């Protein structure tokens, strides 16, 4: 299968034309020994590592990731809803190593030196790279709201990085009495997975409807509208009556302080006071800490990149993909990160071969479950235009309003299909 797969990709890359430009061979020769280092084995990084090997099998690719197993955030809301397990969303690195020849190192990168082109790890290793691809995801800005710090994440889970946090929040929901209030505090834009908080509310409602039907879900939002809003709200009406309430920032949804001891969120200078039985605070976010520490965020919170190649506009030779980067019209999603990984793979290979950069072409799809049998989606196709990544006009958009139940059910089937497909594409 490996050989077939490689063969397929070589064909995809357009092998067959046999004309070689003079001078080209030398560039390619030197790149044969090239070492590509990838930081982060999540949606973006694992894809990039695998696709560099697929497009250019002779390159040496090292993937550095601290975790031996990765839990996808996608599907983690299904775990909260009680119809998937942590095992269902667990991914490992065996196929990347054995099937694709990626050198997977279990470690954390602590320092990047863009001048000397080295990375240093917590384990004490220093590694040279010819090109570096970084996909470290997000980190949280706990300082944004007084009263809560990262140390409180046990009592007030974010569950915005899947794993122990997901298990913790699920346990709290299970322990909540019937008639309790589950409060979700949703961040302002931009943040990881724009439809995520609303899918989470839906999945909690699905669970409560069966197990504790007198309970309520309150979303306190730091913005005025949200992804797929019309479709979510219609779905909530249809399936959950008035169980879910959403408060935009202008109506008291903008949380200004949290009292962890009493699980109370305050807004409007204390005028709004919301006592929770289970509190899920999703803090505002920024690029992964290592991206900041490497200077890749400049003066901002996210990493600016060239929309054509995803190369950092701050440090040459470093490509930043996934949630950490500023990718124009593309949302911060696993599907986006996966597509960006392929673009970065092509860009790195071409750059090492001394070839002109190719213009990125990417797509995104985000499915959200409202019930296990009712899903909605948003899609986009993206192109590079005038220095930016833009949505291709006329394409993309959300599922139709007022679609009949069989269509929603079909999308729910494809939601599961999307999951299986994309984790295969990333870690398979």
């Amino acid at each position, binding site marked *: 299968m490996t050989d077939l797969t490689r063969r397929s990709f070589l064909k995809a*890359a357009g092998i067959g034309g046999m004309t070689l430009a003079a001078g080209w061979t030398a560039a390619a020769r030197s790149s044969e020994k090239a070492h590509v280092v990838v930081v982060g084995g999540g949606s973006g990084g694992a894809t990039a590592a695998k696709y560099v090997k697929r497009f250019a099998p002779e390159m040496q690719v090292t993937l550095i990731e601290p975790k031996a197993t990765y839990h996808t955030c996608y599907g983690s809301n299904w775990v909260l809803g009680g119809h998937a397990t942590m095992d269902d969303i667990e991914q490992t690195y065996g196929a990347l190593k054995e099937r694709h020849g990626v050198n997977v190192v279990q470690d954390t990168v602590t320092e990047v030196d863009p001048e000397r082109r080295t990375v240093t790890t917590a384990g004490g290793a220093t590694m040279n790279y010819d090109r570096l691809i970084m996909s470290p995801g997000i980190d949280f800005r706990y300082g944004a709201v007084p009263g809560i710090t990262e140390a409180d994440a046990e009592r007030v889970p974010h569950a915005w990085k899947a794993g122990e946090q997901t298990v913790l929040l699920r346990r709290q929901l299970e322990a909540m009495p019937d008639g309790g209030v589950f409060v979700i505090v949703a961040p302002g834009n931009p943040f990881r997975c724009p439809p995520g908080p609303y899918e989470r509310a839906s999945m909690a409602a699905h669970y409560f409807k069966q197990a504790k039907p007198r309970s309520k879900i309150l979303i306190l939002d730091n913005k005025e509208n949200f992804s797929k809003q019309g479709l979510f709200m219609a779905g909530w009406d249809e399936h959950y009556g008035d169980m879910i309430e959403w408060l935009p920032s202008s109506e008291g949804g903008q949380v200004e302080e949290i009292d962890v001891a009493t699980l109370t969120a305050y807004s409007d200078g204390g005028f709004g006071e919301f006592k929770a039985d289970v509190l899920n605070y999703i803090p505002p976010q920024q690029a992964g800490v290592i991206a900041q520490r490497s200077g890749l965020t400049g003066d901002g919170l996210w990493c600016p990149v060239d929309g054509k190649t995803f190369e950092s506009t701050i440090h040459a030779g470093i490509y930043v993909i996934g949630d950490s980067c500023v990718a124009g019209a593309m949302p911060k999603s696993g599907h986006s990160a996966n597509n960006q990984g392929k673009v970065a793979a092509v860009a790195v290979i071409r750059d090492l071969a001394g070839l002109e950069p190719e213009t990125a072409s990417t797509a995104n799809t985000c499915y959200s479950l409202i019930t296990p049998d009712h899903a909605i989606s948003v899609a986009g196709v993206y192109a590079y235009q005038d220095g930016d990544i833009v949505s291709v006009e006329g394409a993309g958009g959300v599922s139709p309003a007022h679609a009949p139940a069989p269509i929603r059910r079909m999308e729910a089937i494809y939601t599961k299909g999307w999951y299986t497909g994309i984790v295969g594409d990333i870690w398979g």
Partner: protein
Amino acid sequence: MMKPVFRIAAGGAMVLACGLVGSQAMADAGREAMITSSCFSCHSIDATGNMPNLVGYPRDLMISQMQMFSNGSRPSTIMDRIARGYSEADYVVMADYFATIEQ
């Protein structure tokens, strides 16, 4: 070290040394590679998941299906929204590629 040898399925059987093949892949890895590998996010090359399998998909059928998704004559849940993001030339790139790969 001996370089492994791969056979390229396309355009008649060729046998090339890995280093050379790889170098050519490098030279040509471009828009075609990005467009076709983008499909694999949902339509896994290993045919896992329940999305239609594109591996070995008949060329002309692929082109006509993409056209029909795009103009709405083939109903779909999401492919209409996606197909409209690509050009006729892109459909041909996809079709040429998927038709020649094997499971």
